[in-house]
């Protein structure tokens, strides 16, 4: 149980770190069309060509896979520890809904990740589906892929709404991961609770608003 939970926590924290970098880069997308296109495409090309980023990317894939697998194993195991639940359970009076539903929130995030990878990663990296053109500087036009996706209001809705479960997952996950890994400083934990809220809020709001801004550009 310790090994499994430590893996969930370590991979979870790594994913949290990744999200910061990812959001910072994506904020380019809200800039005016001409600036955003050149900047985003050259940034994306630099990333794709860097051997260091290649390694990081593999660690990232591995983290997602390990996080999901161990989360499922832990959740199934936890269910086994409580084979029968209560006829009446007022758990909302002693804990947050979020903390009670990390598995459900996680599955929702997984659904998002699958669609998200199919939209971008599969097209750009694997070359599946509709081909991706080059921009005027000869960079792969990732900006256009993003821009055209978010002209579809269903995708905007999907991308924005699913940032709510992500935010909730992160809010509880960040605090929990630190405690799982043995951080027990009393005052530090009070600060951590606030940091988790701010972090999760910025991530959910940031990722959630970008598709909407791009849609109305």
């Amino acid at each position, binding site marked *: *149980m*310790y090994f*499994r*939970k430590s893996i969930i926590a370590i991979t979870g924290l790594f994913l949290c770190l990744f999200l910061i970098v990812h959001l910072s880069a994506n904020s380019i997308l809200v800039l005016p069309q001409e600036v955003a296109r050149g900047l985003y495409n050259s940034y994306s090309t630099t990333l794709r060509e860097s051997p260091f980023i290649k390694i990081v990317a593999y660690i990232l894939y591995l983290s997602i896979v390990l996080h999901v697998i161990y989360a499922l194993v*832990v959740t199934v*195991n*936890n269910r*086994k*520890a*409580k*084979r*029968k*639940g*209560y*006829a*009446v*359970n*007022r*758990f909302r*009076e*002693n*804990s*947050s809904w979020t*903390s*009670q539903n*990390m598995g459900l929130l996680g599955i929702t995030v997984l659904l998002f990740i699958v669609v998200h990878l199919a939209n971008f990663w599969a097209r750009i990296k694997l070359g599946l589906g509709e081909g991706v053109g080059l921009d005027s500087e000869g960079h792969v036009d990732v900006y256009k892929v993003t821009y055209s996706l978010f002209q579809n209001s269903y995708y905007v809705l999907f991308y924005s709404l699913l940032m709510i479960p992500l935010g909730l997952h992160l809010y*509880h996950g960040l*605090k*929990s991961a*630190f*405690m*799982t*890994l*043995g*951080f*027990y400083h*009393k005052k530090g*934990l009070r600060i951590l609770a606030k940091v988790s809220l701010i972090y999760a809020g910025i991530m959910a709001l940031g990722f959630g608003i970008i598709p909407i801004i791009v849609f109305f550009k």
Partner: protein
Amino acid sequence: MKVIFKIWRQENTNTKGNFQSYEVDELTEDMSFLEALDHLNEVLVTKNEKTIAYEYDCREGICGQCGVFINGRAHGPHDNMTTCQLHMRSFRDGETIVVEPWRASAFPIVKDLVVDRSSFDNIIEQGAYISAKTGTAPEANSILVRKEIVDKAMDAAACIGCGACVATCKNSSAALFTSAKINHLNSLPQGKQEASKRVLEMTKQMELEGFGSCTFTGACEVECPEGISIINIAEMNARRTKAKWIG
């Protein structure tokens, strides 16, 4: 005062149980919850029906025997309280009160509301004691312990082993209980010698007994009659990592 008790009845571990409702009259608001159940049992005896099995001992919040799930909360509607400290004034006249046994795979039901908490004893046996012979109580000032450490150890030592933490936890995790025992002893000089062994063996036993893992929902610290903080669980995790990798 009148209430309707909807109580889980189960003959033994292997039979299927079910809820049965009992209308109970002639209660007063000053009665404790257990007195209300006593009253119901007296009525059942006069009617020649099977009495309801439930546990208690001290009836003053110190023994940890009286755990039951009442209206969806461990030990009833209040935070940080045992069942024996609960009074009927916490319920409305005519209210239906649902009473269930602790639910956890590691706490099999013995009968009705009584569960077998031997799994806690098994964890205790893995090191919630010091094996040195200490003789009679030594002079208090011969071993100096910092005030903050004494306070922390005493807070953890307050655990009465009631099992509310396990009962309320969605994962039936025994992390709060186990961490209270470990941090109590491992904080004090007398417990230091066996500190690593204690944390490794007790956490291992906790796993073997079939308790789930901790998701830090925090439900346990709200239901714990002793108000033991979940920070203890984080500290236990730190102690375990240290014991495992450093020794």
